[in-house]
């Protein structure tokens, strides 16, 4: 029995088999036992009846990405599982439990040389009144991991409460039968005891922490148009915004959603919407309006594989170009990217604060991976960023809505304030907001809008910078966790690698990146985009080291820590 810091488990079944439920219960029970963990789900396009897999990583410390391969793979059945065989990589050390009636092992699994054990999961479930195979699978995992049975029972009772006592009893019986079936099987791994933590624990997805960050930052109006994988943000906000005196309103399309939040924000209410690539594309024109009329709004883009409809349920980092460069005209705006499930809270809250302070639209680039993954985490510390707009004061004389000031931010009048009446306009305007086609007014307002973003003191939050090696890994967004883990492994081999991950992508921070790169001789850029959008962005705005290599590929497969580590090691030799 080898003691390890983390163990990865995949539970696979056709849609309706309940693999995802089993995975969720496993993560929650392990969290109650004190472990940290992460769950992602992989599903096909079908709403019901397709294939599904719950990918769970349990660890004695917080984890922000999936491991390189799965130590334990449980197949309730393998129908269509070939379609995502590449996502459930196993190795010779892995244990694969398969139901002999569940079809053939996926080819990739069969070829891996793992230890394969047959357990009649469905037959065991059938022997129990109302027994469900997924609970037997949960029992197998819980038994092999040594999870206390009472914790699994507690979680079952909590999560299946609405299904009634009979269902709970049947599930407990399934769990126990699974644990019994695990007796005699050998995972040969043992999770080391979790590090104790005094912080309260959360079980959350990035989309949920994003919603909380928005409300904490001050958002009180959200417009919603459903889209995968962003809908959970809106569904979390729908019941929660009214509790704090806010409103969520469903729009007829994304064109309406973005204009609704501009209207709400014009009325003085901090406002946001959440969408994915196709929706962001529709919102771009109005984001230009928000830039020109200086109306703060926040748009969360939970990125999925594109272009067009792409792969709605899979992650990619390929909306960087549209977020940074998509607006027509010269339209300076904010672009931010959270780096983990925890950081979705911080970055969204900070994004609301920045948008309000700078009277500019902010695009927050989350992605499907951190958006839909669920993690057991320590409750993050509160942060002080709350949106505060510079408000105009009642005045007698003519009000200059777009007065040129030292910092570029002009006091904003809100309807209801006497003497502040002005017309917000997408037309080029003068300081009063009156339309003009004069060269000097055009230039003055362009200068003002650029200056207010460039002069702002963003502080150290602009990027994650760790370590001081001569080789720097520069990455962004949800790949930060993978890169950090790869760097930690390389450190174990005696290598000192620097990690740089900008959280603030626009406006760019050339002086700060220059300082972060001090002493760096080689740069490895890591990103999940087919064309290397992040690398091109870095090249356009920053001076990098002489030697630059790029590890980039499209979704849907996540870039695992071992790939990054390999790129680091290869370069070393």
């Amino acid at each position, binding site marked *: 029995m080898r003691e390890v810091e983390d163990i990865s488990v995949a539970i696979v079944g056709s849609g309706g088999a309940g693999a995802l439920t089993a995975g969720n219960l496993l993560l929650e029970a392990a*969290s*109650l036992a004190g472990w940290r963990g992460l769950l992602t789900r992989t599903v096909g396009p079908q709403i019901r009846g397709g294939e599904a897999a719950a990918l769970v990583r349990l660890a004695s410390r917080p984890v922000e990405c999936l491991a390189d391969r799965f130590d334990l793979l449980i197949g309730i059945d393998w129908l269509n599982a070939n379609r995502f065989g590449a996502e459930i990589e196993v190795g010779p050390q892995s244990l694969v439990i398969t139901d002999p009636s569940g079809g053939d092992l996926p080819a990739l699994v069969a070829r891996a040389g793992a230890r394969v054990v047959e357990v009649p999961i469905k037959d065991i479930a059938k022997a129990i009144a109302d027994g469900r195979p997924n609970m037997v699978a949960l029992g197998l995992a819980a038994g092999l991991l040594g999870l206390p049975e009472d914790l699994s029972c507690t979680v079952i009772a909590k999560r299946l409460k609405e299904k009634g006592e009979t269902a709970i009893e049947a599930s407990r019986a399934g769990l126990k039968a699974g644990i019994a079936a695990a007796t005699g099987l050998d995972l040969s791994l043992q999770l080391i005891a979790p590090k104790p933590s005094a912080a309260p*624990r*959360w*079980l959350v997805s990035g989309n*949920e922490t994003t919603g*909380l960050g928005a*409300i*904490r930052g001050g958002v*009180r*109006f959200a*417009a919603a148009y459903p889209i995968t994988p962003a809908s959970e943000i809106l569904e979390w906000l729908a019941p*929660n915004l*009214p*509790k*704090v*005196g806010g*409103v969520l*309103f469903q*729009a*007829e*399309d994304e*064109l*309406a*959603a973005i*204009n*609704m*939040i*501009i*209207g*709400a*924000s*014009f*009325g*003085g*209410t901090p*406002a946001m919407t959440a969408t994915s690539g196709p929706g962001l594309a529709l919102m771009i*024109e*109005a984001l*230009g*309006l928000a830039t020109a*009329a200086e109306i703060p709004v926040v748009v969360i883009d939970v990125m999925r594989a594109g272009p067009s409809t792409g792969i709605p349920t899979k992650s990619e980092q390929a909306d960087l170009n549209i977020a940074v460069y998509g607006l027509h005209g010269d339209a300076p705006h904010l672009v931010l990217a959270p780096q983990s499930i925890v950081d979705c809270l911080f970055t969204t809250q900070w994004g609301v604060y920045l948008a309000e302070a700078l009277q500019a639209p902010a695009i927050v680039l989350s992605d499907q991976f951190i958006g839909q993954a669920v993690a*057991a985490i320590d*409750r993050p510390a509160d942060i002080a960023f709350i949106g505060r707009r510079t408000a105009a004061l009642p005045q007698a004389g003519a009000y200059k809505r777009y007065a040129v000031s030292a910092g570029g931010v002009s006091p904003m*009048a809100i*309807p*209801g*304030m*006497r*003497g*502040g*009446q*002005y*017309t*917000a*306009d*997408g037309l080029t305007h003068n300081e009063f*907001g*009156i*339309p003009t086609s004069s060269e000097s007014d055009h230039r003055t307002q362009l200068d003002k809008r650029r200056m207010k973003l460039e002069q702002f003191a963003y502080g150290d939050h602009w990027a994650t910078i760790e370590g001081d090696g001569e080789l720097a890994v520069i990455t962004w967004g949800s790949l930060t966790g993978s890169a950090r883990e790869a760097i930690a492994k390389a450190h174990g081999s005696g290598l000192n690698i620097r990690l740089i991950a900008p959280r603030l992508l626009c406006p760019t921070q050339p002086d700060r990146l220059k300082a972060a790169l001090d002493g760096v001789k080689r740069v490895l850029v890591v990103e999940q985009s087919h064309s290397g959008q992040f690398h091109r962005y870095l090249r356009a705005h920053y001076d990098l080291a002489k030697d630059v290599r790029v590890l980039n590929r499209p979704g849907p497969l996540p870039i695992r820590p071992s790939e990054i580590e390999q790129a680091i090691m290869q370069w070393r030799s």
Partner: protein
Amino acid sequence: MSSVETRSACKPGDYKSDIKPIWCPGCGDYHVLLSFTRAFAELGLVPEETVVVSGIGCSSRIPAYTKCYGFHGVHGRSLALATGLKVSRPDLTVVVASGDGDGYSIGGNHFLHACRRNIDMTYVVMDNRVYGMTKGQPSPTTEPDFDTALSPGGTGLSPFHPLVIALAAGANFVARAFSGDPNQTTSILVDAIRHPGFSFVEVLSPCVTFRPDEREWKTQMHPAPVAATSDPGKAARRIMTDDGFNIGILYRGNRRPYQAKVGSNCIDLAELEKDFAL
């Protein structure tokens, strides 16, 4: 219209800004602006508690010509912007101005949903049956044989019927006005703003530059022969069978306006985390 404080003894001039309109001499929209300011004065609206929202086109220039708060947004999205404003600020009086291109073509989908939602606001579409600002292309209300550079020989398409569509989609007040009759237009606007829910006013407003034939409209207009009904079936029949120059209030519904569900007690933000806790 909101139950806000109103001011008595207001004059139309109190609502007119100093900005000189860009409209062509003889444009019907001058009289619509006059009717706006007269209606606002008659209602005693507080300028800073009134917002005029618009999209793009000749008619959409109207917000800055008033002394109210205004928003001249992007093409076709005025109703969406106004919806976000009104839902988050129900205390404001919101009037939306649009044209036949802005409102019925690029903004057509928002028109349907604004009618359906029945949020308390007034939607005024200045219909001149042509895209004026881009110099004379056919709009959704243009006649099929109207010859333009973009549609040589005419589009051959039947015009859109905004009033019956508004009615079918759920608008709570439907009226037709003629810019050349500012007294009647003012009176209709007053009623429309007072009426709860979504009020739709189609103002026939001639484009003398690209549709000189519309100068003849003044001879074709006539008052609606019967009073407004609250029966949508009757209203639909009248609107579908009239000659299109029937001026007056055609439908006054009694649907309840949309009210956002906002919790009465604002809870501590820490409460929101409770669902996250293990």
